[in-house]
């Protein structure tokens, strides 16, 4: 018999779910390549899991051994460049981050991804003393996820302003910014006292405020910049499908030829 699932709140679910759909997985293969096999054997003690995924070696390690593993990769296996490092937010599922380091061996043209899981609130060791590229990359990771990095020379926000609150790439952070974000510029430029006068930042690009006479001009019933909006001043305007037809006709002048 099929497993019973409660059907109470069907409306709130996605309107299309194929109940027979099984999400396939990108194949994970055994490590066969001689170079990668030697990397795995050198790091045997630290590796929890290793496999090939789409042509690159992936090794899972413990979050306390990241510095040692990457040091061995650099000094013994010839991985002289750390192309990229960042994190993936799995807080909702496991209360953990998944961190990855993308390493490149320039001589062999091989790539290894070092992956570890880091529980929320824990700090990771910096690899800045091995790879200076980690200086910016770790700052970005801290900025975007709030992951603290030990032994980083200058762990400061990099893309967001220094006095920002919240970490934008967390899954809990709303796409359009949170409460703090909507008041950030008002608070910073004018002060909190001006919140009532200015209002929160509008993040809806299609919103048009008809009474706003500072940002929009209205054909036919123009008001001075910042002037009072008055619906009585409106003149009747005739539009064809696309063009304005009789805009203030008596005052307008038609040119015979192009000047």
């Amino acid at each position, binding site marked *: 018999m099929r497993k019973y699932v409660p059907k109470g709140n069907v409306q709130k679910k996605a309107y*299309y779910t194929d109940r027979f759909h099984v*999400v*396939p*997985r*990108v194949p994970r293969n055994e490590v066969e390549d001689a170079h990668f096999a030697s990397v795995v054997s050198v790091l045997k003690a630290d590796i929890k899991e290793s496999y090939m*995924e*789409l042509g*690159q070696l*992936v090794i899972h390690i413990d979050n306390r051994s990241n510095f040692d593993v990457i040091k061995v990769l650099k000094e013994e296996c010839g991985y*002289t*460049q*750390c*192309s*990229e490092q*960042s994190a*993936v*937010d799995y807080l909702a599922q496991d209360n953990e981050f998944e961190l*990855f380091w*993308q390493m490149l061996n*320039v001589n062999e*043209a091989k*790539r290894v*991804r070092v992956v570890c899981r880091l529980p929320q609130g824990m700090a990771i060791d910096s690899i800045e003393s091995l*790879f*200076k*590229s980690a*200086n*910016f*990359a770790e700052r*970005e990771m801290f900025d*975007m996820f709030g992951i603290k990095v030990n032994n980083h020379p200058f762990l400061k*926000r*990099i*893309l*967001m*302003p220094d006095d920002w609150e919240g970490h*934008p*790439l967390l*899954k809990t*952070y709303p*796409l359009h910014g949170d409460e703090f974000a909507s008041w950030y510029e008002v608070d910073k430029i004018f002060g909190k006292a001006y919140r009532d006068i200015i209002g929160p930042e509008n993040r809806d690009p299609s919103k048009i405020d008809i009474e706003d006479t500072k940002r929009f001009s209205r054909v036919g019933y123009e008001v001075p910049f910042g002037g009072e909006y008055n619906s009585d001043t409106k003149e009747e305007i005739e539009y064809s499908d696309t063009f304005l037809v009789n805009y203030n006709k008596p005052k307008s002048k038609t040119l015979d030829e192009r000047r």
Partner: protein
Amino acid sequence: MQQVPNKLTPFFENLNFERDDNTMVINFGPQHPSAHGQLRLVLELDGEQVVKAYPDIGYLHRGIEKMAENMTYNEFLPTTDRLDYIASTSNNYAYALAVEKLLGIEAPRRAQVIRTMLLELNRIISHLFFIATHALDVGAMSVFLYAFREREYAMDLMEDYCGARLTHSAVRIGGVPLDLPKGWIENLAAFCDKVDHEVEHTYEALLSQNRIWRMRLEDVGVISAEDALNWGCTGPMLRGSGVKYDIRKEEPYELYSELDFDIPVSDRCDSYGRYRLYMQEMRESTKILRQLMPMYAKSDSQLMAHAPQYISAPKEQIMTQNYALMQHFVLVTQGMRPPKGEVYVPTESPKGELGFYIKSEGEPYAYRLKCRAPSFFHTGLLQEILVGTYIADVVTIIGTTNIVFGEVDR
């Protein structure tokens, strides 16, 4: 010491004279014309020498990675235009290739030819832009005008192909949307001749032996091979330091394994070496383009990969077959659902290694997308190579890194 402005000692936003030691802190950018967009560089100067440099970035941060998590895979593609907006197609391509790797599909032959053509054309556009702005920063106005003239022809070619000059979106996941228009190949051939001629007779003739140009560039911005690797330098920045690593050659994608081209390397490690490298790379690009033209003629006309689970079927099938229409409807309204897994795909963009890391959980949205932008790491490098140089060389060094802020801040 804090500045106390009064009528005699006015407050200068950019300058802070009153420090206890004898250094001066100046604020370079974000509106400085040589800041290549939105770079703010805080420089601590001892006389004219830089003691400390602090690149402050984030002025163009639009949260593109966050947007990627909230858009279906096809929706996100035009957003990648805004990364390195000088050579948009290379971003589109890098992203499309990463998704294709994840899906396990390959573009048909003609699409590959067109993509490789567009990539190389974009490389020329980007390199022309580099030489133009770099020369302008250093003070050679005329080179800027000549290089922008040729860049205009290249952008006309892009416009003929996809209708856009800057934000191309000329690549799709699984192929290309359009075939080349009539006469495009001939125009491209003429453009290749033009570029080859201009590189030799205009840019190099104006610059290579120019005394001022050489004095401004030679032994300026020296990066050792070890430092270049350590700081994550890629592309011309790495090859300019004597490391012969080009992803097109070492980890070939698209048609690069079939093409005959050289990887120019310079072991001078300075700005002049990098300038020579850029010039040579343009020649290699035209060489590649010339080889691609006959390949185009030989390929058959399919443009998009056949993978109806992920990519909409050709239009005649959608219009005639019910099942294809249903699949198309699901793909348009919900987006494709790639298999679970993660992928990191590096490509050689004109600036260096442009890679996309995509983590998929089987949803129509990427669970995490990380864009590995070469300029981001080249900006990080500035805090080291600027130290000890003179303020006049700062502009040269920023120019030679060829950073574009669309991809630094993302």
